[in-house]
């Protein structure tokens, strides 16, 4: 009876941490943890500038208010992670899964996003400047009141995403697919720096 009880306690205790504690310690100590298990870890408010988190599982992790400037998140899985008010200037998100992220106020300036996946993500009020998003998968994401400025969105199908009141200054949408409403909103904004001449405005 007592063994069963102890066994149950051990199972419950170990399941409280979805992530690998050694991996978390590695990251906190060395600012580097590649191919690590940091699922659901609490990394909120940390200074992780220049850290290497490539190929790591950060799904569901809380990174809100952390500093990831110049960090390497190549191939990392951030599905469902909380990136609220994170500074990720000049960070590498090549082939990173950014689906379902909570990214309100996220700052991505001149970050590298080739092959990144942004599906069902909340990026309202995010600051996305100087990005090349042409080889990024963007679907059903919320960019309301965000800025996607000085960026290339050429060839993307953005019809399922919310671009309401988004600053699109000096961005280009060459051969992108937009809804007629999105096209109208962009034209009504009277911002002549937005290149939507060759965008396809579809019903």
């Amino acid at each position: 009876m007592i063994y069963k009880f102890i066994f149950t306690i051990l199972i419950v205790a170990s399941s409280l941490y979805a992530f690998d504690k050694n991996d978390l310690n590695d990251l906190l100590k060395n600012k580097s943890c590649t191919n690590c298990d940091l699922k659901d870890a609490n990394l909120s408010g940390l200074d992780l500038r220049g850290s290497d988190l490539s190929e790591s599982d950060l799904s569901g992790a809380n990174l809100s208010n952390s500093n990831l400037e110049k960090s390497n998140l190549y191939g990392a899985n951030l599905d469902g992670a909380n990136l609220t008010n994170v500074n990720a200037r000049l960070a590498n998100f090549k082939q990173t899964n950014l689906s379902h992220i909570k990214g309100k106020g996220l700052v991505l300036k001149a970050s590298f996003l080739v092959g990144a996946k942004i599906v069902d993500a909340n990026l309202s009020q995010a600051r996305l400047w100087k990005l090349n998003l042409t080889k990024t998968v963007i679907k059903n994401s919320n960019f309301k009141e965000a800025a996607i400025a000085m960026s290339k969105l050429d060839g993307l199908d953005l019809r399922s995403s919310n671009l309401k009141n988004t600053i699109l200054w000096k961005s280009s949408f060459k051969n992108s697919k937009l809804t007629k409403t999105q096209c109208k909103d962009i034209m009504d904004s009277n911002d002549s720096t937005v290149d939507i001449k060759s965008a396809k405005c579809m019903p």
Partner: protein
Amino acid sequence: MKKLLLMVIIFTTTTFANNIFLVKHDYNKTLTKAKKLNKPIFLMYSTTTCPECNYMKQVVFTQKRVKTFLKQNFVTAMLDIKRDKLPKELKYIGIPTFFIISKDGRELGKLIGGMSADKFLNAFKKDK
């Protein structure tokens, strides 16, 4: 001819944006002005190579309603991160940062980053 026209447009845009700032690169002079005019300070901390800062200068601060609002309510000033020291009591995490400061130098509020004119005005109307 096209080059000349482009230069005129750039010069005009820059001049309009710069006109909004009553004091540049001199925080002490800004405080003196604020006391004299009995107005709080609107201070932009930025630099010339920052895209978000340039968006604010070229798009938001050139709008008449924004200019009028700022001129009526604040002593407007700008400091450049590359050449001016920010007073110790003012904290920032990135540029552009827009501080609202009392005439005796206390920070009353701040906004960070580029934003639309509507958002800018709404936020400052709330914070003022």
